């Protein structure tokens, strides 16, 4: 009896085995120009990977390709769905892909206005994903929204205010809450602290670190700021001109960079 596993159980066991996301030989070209070239890596459940590099390094192009926001020229991205089955994202139906994007994934944009609805209330911004997946109970949606606002340190009495009335830091925290409300397993972040004052950045990073740990989130974060990578990530991938220069555990790469380019990056950040 007990050696007979249900499909569900097998799936759950498999889920503990494999990577959450596998990128293989991913290339994006714009005509002759290379966006990113022949990139392969894995992200494991609960792991935070920072993709670092200067502007033009291809890090944002790579992020947009693996999150299916931009079609890749070649290569595959395989994602382990909630049922434990690995799926090639580039062969997925649009309906399923969009469903994945607003349930099991999150995407935090650098500019909160790109990820929020600026003309609807904070509560509705957080509640939208719940309504999108079929929640039809106003009271429950509002309760969940209130709870999430407090988790990102926004006072409950601001629930009916529009993000237009919020500071930059609050908008970014609201964007994070809006993404996390469906308990995604993977969140993409594009320079989430960019454009914020240093003190606001510090508070946001602190909050992010806590949420990532509490929720066991896997995160792929793109940043030019090695301090952000140091604080948040387990692993670092350094990019330049569309290529991966160096990859490894964050502390190892930042304390003992091997590639000359990484050494340059690290030393320039130390000078600041």
């Amino acid at each position, binding site marked *: 009896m007990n050696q007979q596993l249900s499909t569900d159980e097998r799936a759950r066991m498999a889920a503990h085995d494999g990577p959450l996301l596998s990128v293989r030989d991913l290339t994006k070209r714009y005509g002759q120009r290379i966006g990113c070239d022949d990139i392969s890596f894995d992200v494991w459940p609960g792991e935070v990977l920072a993709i670092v590099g200067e502007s033009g390094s291809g890090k944002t192009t790579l992020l947009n390709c693996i999150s299916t926001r931009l079609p890749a020229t070649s290569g595959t991205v395989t994602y382990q769905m909630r049922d434990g089955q690995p799926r090639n994202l580039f062969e997925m139906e649009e309906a399923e892909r969009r469903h994945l994007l607003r349930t099991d994934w999150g995407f935090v944009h650098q500019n909160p206005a790109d990820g929020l609805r600026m003309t609807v*209330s904070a509560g509705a911004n957080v509640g939208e994903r719940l309504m999108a997946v079929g929640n039809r109970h*106003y009271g429950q949606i509002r309760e969940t929204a209130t709870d999430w606002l407090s988790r990102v340190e926004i006072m409950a009495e601001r629930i009916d205010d529009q993000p237009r009335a919020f500071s930059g830091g609050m908008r970014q925290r609201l964007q994070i809450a809006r993404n996390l409300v469906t308990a995604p397993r993977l969140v993409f972040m594009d320079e989430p602290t960019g454009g914020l004052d240093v003190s606001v950045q510090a508070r946001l990073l602190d909050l992010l670190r806590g949420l990532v740990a509490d929720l066991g989130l896997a995160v792929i974060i793109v940043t030019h700021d090695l301090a952000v990578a140091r604080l948040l990530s387990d692993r670092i991938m350094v990019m330049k001109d569309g290529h991966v220069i160096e990859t490894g555990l964050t502390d190892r790469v930042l304390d003992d960079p091997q590639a000359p380019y990484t050494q340059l990056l690290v030393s320039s950040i130390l000078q600041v």
Partner: protein
Amino acid sequence: MSTILDLMAEQPSSDLAHYNFAYLDEQTKRMIRRAILKAIAVPGYQVPFGSREMPMPYGWGTGGVQVTASILGAEDVLKVIDQGADDTTNAVSIRKFFEHVAGVKTTTSTEEATVIQTRHRIPERPLEPGQTIVFQVPIPEPLRFLEPRETETRAMHALEEYGLMHVKLYEDIARHGHIATTYAYPVKVAGRYVMDPSPTPKFDNPKMHRNAALQLYGAGREARIYAIPPYTEVVSLDFEDHPFEVNRFDRPCALCGAENVYLDEVVTDDAGGRMFVCSDTDNCESRRADGHVGEMGVPAAEAAE
């Protein structure tokens, strides 16, 4: 503003008389009929069509006028209402227009009409099999309120992603404590497409559900046609804890005593006197003709004297 009425007044034997039956040429009518057929086949889906210039401003319901022009036959009897009334400028002009260019019989009687063109109301008298009601639609896209990108709203319809409609209702409740939308209240048609019932008051939403008549919607400026075939399921969107409710009026019509009808407030004198009467003028008149009298009404026999 030069309207069709002015045109007809200025030129009694105007060129309008030489236009095709119902103004539009046969090729255009065929094109619009194809769009209508497609709309009927896919209830609630917005079908694009090649909207034509009509001899009246867009605000006058050129979408509805084009739909009506394409379906009218010589035997049809046309009724036109604005709000619920047959006698407003807009309703009179459109009725005169079709009398002129199609020579069809017109009526104010809901019962007699085979085609009813409306800007807001659905008549109180239940429509019958074989009747067609044509709505003049200003903004056909129910998702436009929160999503201005046309490519995105199209994808949302195609993929049945309608969470955004509930965001709109959520905002209503958050702001007003209840769903305050009283016009253009969104509905789901045949369990599939979410549709904007034009500026129809939500009071009339239940009339759309399993109506025996064919309901056609025409948006002129945005060049869209959509339809609800007879006896189709039409569900008004809501929340479990804030269910859809029609607005109730706490009194009957002052003239005919009708209850559970849509009432308009009418100012009766300079001293601020006012009364509430049927917005559906045909309904009110036929009830009074049948002997119903409201608290401020006069029996039909006396009124005739």
